[in-house]
């Protein structure tokens, strides 16, 4: 594999141990992916932030890297943490957990990563069509590739960090245009109306992920457009939960157009959607959890506009978003709490101790949250956002 003189120096340890270790790891990945060279990246997004997920072992790993003098060389953002940094006491989180979480965030901050703590960097970072990125977090990678037309592989959290340190990623996978072409067609035309009317975009996403595996699919017949960011976010996040692909070409929403000739077509019928949804029938009990991926400001304003003028929710509604959106909404918080609606920043239902503050039965509109919470032993009911709000006010 070709390395330029600068990259050789990084590998040889001329810039210190952390950069050498980062370059060695990036090279191993590049070799395994049969890349001919590395490509410079513009931006990085680092997952693997939650103490609940990475544990003492991950914490040690990050502190070791910071102690070796590691530092990112491109703008880099952080995925959500295991708690809300300001309201952690309301989440039933103990002080020991809080302190461990802060050590992880501080180790990453020492490495130069901005503590944005959101899974939706595509709403905040300066990225555009054709940019090469070192992103982790499957929903973010899927959005960047599929909707913006930027180029990122589905990096693991530590790989994205190593790529951010060396400022480069292997020129392989979705960084290469010839790998961005459709390998199969998934056609929703015959159920397009039902998906739209019953808001089944999370279900459609879970199905696409399961059908496509690691292949790049062309999705046809869904009424997804950039104007419905809420649907696109739910759809792509669900694809990322059940599938391994980092790119979904969506007719009508993706900027890239390639002919889909000579590939198989799968026609989706309503039975396939129904069977997917039946995995998440849960119970009608429990709290409502919305915000996987993190809600945008527009989405939260839309939810607020759908709450009944009078009355209080009969069960708790938890909304998850970025710190930036939370602060923009601060004037609404007292009114929302009166309605039994609680907004958390920096974290989400999947990575915070949900069972402590919400119990083991929940209702969500997110196929991704449903998939991961079910795997953690929760009883999860997957419904549309509108239906979830209605259930809370009856």
């Amino acid at each position, binding site marked *: 594999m070709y390395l330029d003189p600068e990259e050789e120096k990084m590998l040889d340890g001329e810039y210190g141990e952390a950069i050498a270790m980062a370059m060695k790891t990036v090279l191993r990945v590049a070799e*395994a992916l049969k890349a001919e060279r590395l490509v410079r990246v513009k931006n990085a997004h680092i997952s693997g932030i*939650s103490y609940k997920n990475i544990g003492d072992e991950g914490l*040690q*790993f990050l502190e070791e890297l910071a102690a070796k003098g590691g530092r990112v060389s491109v703008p880099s953002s952080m995925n959500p943490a295991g708690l809300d940094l300001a309201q952690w006491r309301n989440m039933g989180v103990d002080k020991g957990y809080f302190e461990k979480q802060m050590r992880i965030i501080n180790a990453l901050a020492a490495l130069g990563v901005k503590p944005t703590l959101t899974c939706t960097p595509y709403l905040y970072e300066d990225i555009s069509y054709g940019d090469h990125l070192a992103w*982790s*977090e*499957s929903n973010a990678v899927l959005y960047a590739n599929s909707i913006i037309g930027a180029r990122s592989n*589905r990096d693991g959290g530590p790989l994205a960090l190593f790529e951010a340190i060396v400022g480069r990623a292997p020129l392989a996978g979705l960084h290469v245009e010839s790998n961005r072409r459709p390998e199969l067609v998934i056609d929703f035309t015959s159920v397009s109306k039902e998906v739209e009317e019953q808001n089944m975009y999370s279900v459609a996403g879970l199905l696409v992920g399961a059908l496509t595996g690691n292949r790049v699919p062309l999705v046809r017949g869904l009424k997804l457009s950039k104007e419905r960011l809420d649907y696109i976010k739910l759809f792509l996040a669900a694809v990322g939960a059940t599938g391994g692909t980092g790119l979904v070409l969506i007719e009508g929403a993706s900027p890239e157009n390639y002919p889909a000739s000579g590939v198989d077509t799968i026609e989706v019928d309503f039975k396939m959607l129904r069977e997917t949804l039946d995995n998440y029938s849960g119970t009608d009990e429990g709290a409502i959890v919305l915000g996987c991926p993190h809600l945008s400001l527009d989405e939260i304003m839309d939810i607020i506009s759908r709450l009944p003028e009078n009355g209080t929710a009969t069960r708790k509604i938890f909304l998850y978003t970025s710190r930036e959106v939370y602060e923009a909404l601060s004037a609404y918080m007292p009114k929302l709490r009166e309605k039994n609606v609680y907004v958390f920043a920096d974290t989400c239902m999947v990575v915070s101790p949900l069972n402590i503050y919400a119990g083991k039965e929940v209702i969500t509109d997110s196929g991704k949250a449903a*998939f991961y919470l079910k795997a*953690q032993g929760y009883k999860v009911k997957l419904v549309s956002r509108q239906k979830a709000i209605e259930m809370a006010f009856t």
Partner: protein
Amino acid sequence: MKIPGHPVSEGVAKAELLVSPEPITFYGGVDPLTSKVTEPGHPLYGEVLKDRILVFPHSKGSTVGSYIILRLARRGIAPAGIVTLKPDEVVIVGCVIGGVPSMTGISEEAFNTLRTGDKAELRVDRNYAELLVEEL
């Protein structure tokens, strides 16, 4: 039988194979404290990965998966080795930072001959990787 592959993470492992026909989700699908597969409905549900050479097509799901491999490794309950059909970064980085011997890119034909319980030795160095499976 000798199955060649591409090196991912250096090392040697001698153990029984645990073969999954389906992709594996490490984050959410494997318990980092017990090494058990917890994804409901998965063909390996309930199996323990520790002390076995894990063979599967590729990983899926969250990229936090690399840290799950690291956690298993630092607790001494990681698979003895990992062999995959297709390379994916979650597995590669998890194996490199966790020090789990691993290779990828074995042929589909070879993959189909492997069975859970087969005794095997995985040998990976910088430029060379092979899985030696004991003949019955």
